[in-house]
């Protein structure tokens, strides 16, 4: 019996544990296993194997009973998931159901979750821009949150590292506020986007319209073929899972790569309850997992633990990891864990028409769009609000059919597609300021169906966000007007925080253990063998879509962890 217990414990002991198999966890697992670490990758949801578990991926439009619209009963039962633009008949199976995963909204917060192997990497918008030094300088220069403990130069080689493997399309634009990366060939800007780019360049020195940088293989290299991935085929059905592996996901890329090393154990249906802290050793020794199939609580052990559960769930797990040494959550000596959470402000859009280029259109489909890097307050403070916004920008040539009448007249009209004018559209992506009053916390009494304390979420807009919405509308209107666009429409959609799916912070990095939770290597200050490299680690949000930065943090932190293990510091 004693031997059995030892054997059983040995069988549950690994070199490393990674919690969460989304974008950042997939990267942690890939880097660890490549460096010879026997790694356990825990995922709370079901397994999703690349291609095999993409049930809708090759369905034709007419094969969807409701032509992609979700039945009312499903929408009514899942108002949070259904608020996401990507929740439709072809992709709904990759969203967590509202009623199975309740939380408490102290303020309205639409927490969009993807609980399966691969997480939200199956559903993401695939925009991948690097941060610049201006972004890392933000909190210190503008006196909010705390100073970042690293700068662009610390992360730049790791951006290169992850970009080459993931496959990033983009153009080298040479813009200070948006450093260039390791790009595969860029997608086209279309006629009107190019025209707008030129007009803006003539008028403003510091404003640029560029093609988005996105995790699509536009020109497959050997490293992508080695992953079993091929050049993107422009289907623009990414949220179904891509049978070509044309875009980056954990499922298509990092997880199969890690499995191929022979060092990865992937364990789906494993809800992490907490990390185990050993007071004598002064470090975390493992994790407690609820097996969602058997309802059994099982412990797993490892030398190092990477927490990549997604920003808010990483907060939840660490806050729930209590011990006599850490009664308020693992590594939470200063009581700041769960606080200073922020997000991206996507509230405003500006659209218009253009009556030029009527002899031209586009051909094919593009899984990408134009992008306007941040131009406000970059070099110095110049407005009545802090920080700034990036923006998406796209133009398309509209087509339509006359739908007048009924009978043969209507049928004839439907057979003749006509060209309308060009439409342009833009949406803002604003930096929001992390504040102590923006927090997540554990409810002291209520539990979710998995026995975890329910998360209370209290995050909202502030006056800085309101000013930024106004400025974005004014500036885009001015830029559109100078380009000769007409019928300019500004719109505040009052999008609820969380719906941007860019929630960040709560376990922020910083120089000082008194005011931050993680050091410059993403280690908990007071529990050095625990690493957090997902959105929870973010000290500030900047304006860029964050996933690329989480990938780079993950790879960099693993590299450091291995060095520390070799130096016997962990």
């Amino acid at each position, binding site marked *: 019996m004693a031997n059995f217990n030892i054997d059983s414990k040995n069988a549950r002991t690994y070199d490393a544990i990674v919690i969460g198999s989304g974008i950042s966890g997939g990267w942690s697992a890939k880097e660890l296993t490549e460096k010879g670490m026997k790694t356990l990758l825990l995922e709370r949801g079901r397994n999703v194997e690349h291609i095999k578990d993409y049930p809708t991926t*090759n369905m*034709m*439009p*007419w094969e969807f*009973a*409701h*032509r992609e*619209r*979700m*039945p*009312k*009963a499903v929408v009514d039962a899942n108002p949070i998931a259904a608020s996401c633009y990507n929740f439709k008949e072809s992709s709904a199976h990759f969203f967590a159901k509202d009623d199975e995963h309740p939380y408490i909204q102290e303020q309205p917060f639409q927490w969009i979750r993807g609980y399966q192997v691969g997480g939200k990497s199956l559903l993401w918008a695939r925009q991948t821009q690097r941060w610049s030094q201006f972004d890392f300088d933000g909190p210190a220069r503008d006196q909010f949150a705390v100073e970042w403990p690293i700068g662009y130069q610390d992360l730049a080689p790791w951006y290169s590292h992850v970009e080459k493997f993931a496959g990033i399309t983009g153009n080298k634009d040479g813009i200070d506020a948006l450093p260039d990366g390791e790009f595969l060939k860029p*997608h*086209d*800007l*279309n*006629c009107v*986007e*190019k025209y707008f780019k030129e007009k803006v360049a003539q008028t403003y020195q510091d404003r640029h319209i560029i093609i988005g940088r996105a995790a699509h293989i536009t020109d497959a290299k050997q490293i992508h073929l080695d992953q079993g991935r091929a050049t993107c*085929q*422009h*289907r623009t059905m990414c949220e179904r899972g891509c049978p070509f592996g044309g875009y980056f996901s954990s499922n298509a890329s990092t997880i199969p790569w890690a499995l191929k090393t022979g060092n990865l154990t992937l364990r789906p249906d494993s809800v992490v309850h907490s990390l185990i802290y050993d007071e004598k050793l002064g470090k975390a020794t493992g994790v407690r997992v609820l097996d969602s199939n058997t309802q059994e609580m099982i412990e797993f052990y490892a030398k190092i633990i990477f927490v990549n559960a997604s920003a808010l769930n990483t907060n939840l797990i660490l806050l729930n990891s209590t011990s006599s040494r850490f009664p308020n959550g693992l590594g939470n000596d200063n009581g700041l864990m769960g606080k200073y959470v922020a997000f991206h402000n996507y509230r405003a859009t500006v659209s218009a028409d253009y009556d030029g*280029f*009527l*002899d*031209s*259109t*586009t*051909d*094919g*489909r*593009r899984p990408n769009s134009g992008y306007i890097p941040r131009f406000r307050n970059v070099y110095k403070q110049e407005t009545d609000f802090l920080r700034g916004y990036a923006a998406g920008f796209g133009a398309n040539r509209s087509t339509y*059919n006359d*739908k007048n009448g*009924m*009978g*043969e007249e*209507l*049928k004839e009209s*439907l*057979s003749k*597609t006509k*060209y309308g004018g060009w439409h342009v559209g833009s949406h803002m992506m604003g930096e929001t300021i992390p504040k102590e009053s923006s927090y997540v916390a554990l409810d002291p009494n209520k539990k979710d169906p998995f026995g975890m304390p329910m998360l209370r979420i209290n995050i909202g807009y502030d006056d800085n966000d309101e000013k930024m919405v106004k400025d974005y509308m004014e500036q885009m209107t001015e830029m559109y007007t100078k380009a000769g666009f007409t019928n300019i429409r500004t719109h505040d959609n009052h999008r609820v925080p969380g719906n941007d799916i860019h929630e960040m912070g709560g376990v922020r990095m910083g120089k000082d253990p008194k005011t931050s939770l993680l050091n410059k290597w993403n280690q908990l200050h007071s529990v050095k063998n625990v690493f957090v490299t997902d959105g929870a680690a973010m000290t500030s949000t900047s304006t860029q879509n964050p996933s690329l930065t989480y990938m780079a943090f993950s790879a960099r932190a693993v590299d450091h962890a291995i060095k520390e293990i070799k130096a016997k510091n962990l």
Partner: protein
Amino acid sequence: MERRTAIRQMALAAGTIVSLPTWAKGWKKADLHTTSFLNTELYQVLEVAVEAIIPETDTPGAGEIGVGAFVALMVKDCYDTAVQNNFSKGLAEIEASSKSRFNKSFSALQQSDKLQVLKSFEKGSDKDQKSFIGLLKNLTIQGYMNSEYVMTNLTHYEMVPARYHGCVPVKG
């Protein structure tokens, strides 16, 4: 319909509740309406109306390619009870209007008379009828344009374009 009823009755007779086995999923389109919110008569009016809105010419009409079933399914699954009730009411009024104007069932009318009935709803002053006919027409167009027949044979949908060109001349 008879087969499904028979299965239900067999199950009831045996005193058990059974779910339909997988082989039973292959019901013909014509059988589907028994599970929708419309009764047989109204469903028939719907199928005829859909075909009248987009009729057979040298290519099939909306009725033949199953758009009636699509419209019924959409109204059942994607709209609230008020819209569903107004939709049933509208179909019943199509039938009633046919009988009062032409003394015939809607399905027995000539195409031009069918259109006259439908257009009278579109142009009339009854708000319920207007919103009913608007929904019926829009769903019919959606079902037709997104049908396998039209997307395959007429609009030549490309599942895998494998390209994007940002600026090409408009054709013809």
